[in-house]
């Protein structure tokens, strides 16, 4: 349908800003998505995710900046001329059409022949477990079914770029997990570029090649799920994606290592050579912390280790979580449950916690504490 130029990004926005009256919904957003990638937009409510989607689809006009689709400037192109599909946050199914008619809408528009349309519609309905719902009117659907119809409708004509605005928010956990895998498989199979908005960080990590983290109308970090989770570049990233133990204090360098002095705790890493700030934060993910029974009664300060007492022990099925009270700090520790080898602890137990240097990410003190 479209000729894909080999190298350029499938979608790119350049310095996009959007104001709604006094509200600055987006400020200076730039993003390039390579063809065939599955990219998730993640961020708190109101940070501008939907607005960005609408601008890419052409439904809203940016106040500033450019939109490039398949390396062509489409900043002023009408939505129906952009090779971009959109799954709406609130479904937006056509109430005067049946489920099958909704799904076949794009195909009928383009004048595809009847039997081909029917076959394609049935294929999609089956794929989304809606096989027997084709003849239903859309007000006879549950929220989750309506959402799947919306997905099927957007996919019917195989748009090279598909924008999905929280397309699975109405599904229950089981179905959602199944759909996540299904959607990912489908995306790989058709080779389309997906830009996917979600509130759910687990969903973003499971599905994405790349995560784009947004806050306050700006992109704060972009990278693979491993990078964004493992190497947060701001307190916001550290806190928004997963859980984080955060320690603040002055930083100093010593024989190629960077040390952060957080009072009773000393953090030390050789892997932060480029980090030049004199004050900052250290982020350690809960699963990067080891927990062991107290071996001795030494109280001197050692780097990357501390003694403490378990204040809370929580069993979560796949995990055990502990809140450990240290001298002046408390840390969250998470360990896989079920393995016979791992010792378990109860409230009040005296324990040692420690972490390896690679578990530490230093963050500049740029944004507020």
């Amino acid at each position, binding site marked *: 349908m479209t000729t894909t130029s080999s190298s350029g990004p499938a979608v790119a926005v350049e310095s996009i800003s959007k104001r709604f009256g006094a509200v600055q919904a987006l400020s200076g957003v730039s993003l390039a998505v390579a063809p065939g990638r599955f990219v998730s937009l993640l961020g708190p409510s109101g940070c501008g995710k939907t607005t960005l989607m609408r601008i890419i689809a052409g439904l809203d006009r940016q106040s500033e900046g450019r939109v490039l689709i398949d390396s062509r400037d489409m900043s002023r192109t009408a939505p129906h001329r952009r090779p971009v*599909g959109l799954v709406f946050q609130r479904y937006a199914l056509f109430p005067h059409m049946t489920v099958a008619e909704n799904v076949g809408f794009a195909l009928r528009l383009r004048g595809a022949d009847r039997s081909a349309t029917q076959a394609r519609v049935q294929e999609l309905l089956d794929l989304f477990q809606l096989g027997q719902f084709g003849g239903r009117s859309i007000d006879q659907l549950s929220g989750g079914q309506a959402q799947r119809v919306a997905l099927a409708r957007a996919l019917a004509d195989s748009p090279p770029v598909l924008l999905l605005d929280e397309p699975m928010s109405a599904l229950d956990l089981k179905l959602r997990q199944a759909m996540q895998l299904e959607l990912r498989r489908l995306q790989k199979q058709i080779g389309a570029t997906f830009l996917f908005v979600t509130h759910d960080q687990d969903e973003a990590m499971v599905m994405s090649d790349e995560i784009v983290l947004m806050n306050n109308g700006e992109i704060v970090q972009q990278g693979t799920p491993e990078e964004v989770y493992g190497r947060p570049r701001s307190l916001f990233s550290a806190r928004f994606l997963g859980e984080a133990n955060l320690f603040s204090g002055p930083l100093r360098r010593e024989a190629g290592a960077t040390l952060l002095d957080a009072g009773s705790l000393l953090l030390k890493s050789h892997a932060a050579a480029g980090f030049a700030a004199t004050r900052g934060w250290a982020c350690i993910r809960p699963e990067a912390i080891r927990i062991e029974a107290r071996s001795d009664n030494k109280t001197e300060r050692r780097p990357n280790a501390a003694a403490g007492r378990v204040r809370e022990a929580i069993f979560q099925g796949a995990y055990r979580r502990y809140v450990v009270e240290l001298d002046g700090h408390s840390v969250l520790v998470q360990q896989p449950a079920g393995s016979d080898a791992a010792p378990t602890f109860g409230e009040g137990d005296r324990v040692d916690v420690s972490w390896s240097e690679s578990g530490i990410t230093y963050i500049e003190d740029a944004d507020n504490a």
Partner: protein
Amino acid sequence: MTYGRASIIAFTTYTCVLLAFLFAPIAVVILFSFDSKGIAAFPFQGPTLSWYQAVIADPIIRKAALNSVIVAVGTTLACILIGTSAAFVIARTRSPSTTAFAGLMALPLLLPHLLLGIALLSFFNSIGIGLSLWTAIIGHVLITLPFLVFTLSARIAGIDPQLSEAAATLGASPAKAFATVTLPLIRSAMIGAALLVVAWSLDEFSVSFLTIGSSNTLPIIIWGQMRAGVSPTVNAISALMVLATILLVCIVHRLADLKFR
């Protein structure tokens, strides 16, 4: 909630009496249109169709009926053409000027028709437009436009604006999106509103009388004949108009029930 038998009977009786009181005059008109006596008074003398034959044979009445239909159809088409876009503006934009626009639209609903008719008459005279069916149509549009605009805008306001956007992202041009999504959703409201306009235009007297010049519509004929007393011919014309209105309602009901795809 359940009601006692007595209260149901009381309520039914009350409703029936009320309806009978409201519809009795119409029934009487229809009854006397079949009476051979020649004056509208009891007792009923004997059935005849001669008044209907007279009405149908009368070239002046036939011309007036044709005029009524022309004015009603013309008014309705003009209302749909002008009113649909106005309804979209009122339903889809929020601004002080939209509110002012809507208020202005509603004004003809509130003004006495006699006054509107006189205003139109002196307006047409002052700018030198001769009175004709056309000027009558303009007058009728002025009065009936609010019915159509407000019926339609209420319906449009109930349609999710994202539906047109969804159609656009699926490849529909604005015209296609209107034809495949918006129009089917407002069609029944449009037909209902058009019916109101037709019925209203067929009925209208004061504005028609003042703006149509030397032509006649059925209500003008009725009024003219009434000055010589209530004649059986008038009853026959009235009965025919009631019949036409009922037919119109039935047709529209059928149309509105059909699913358009």
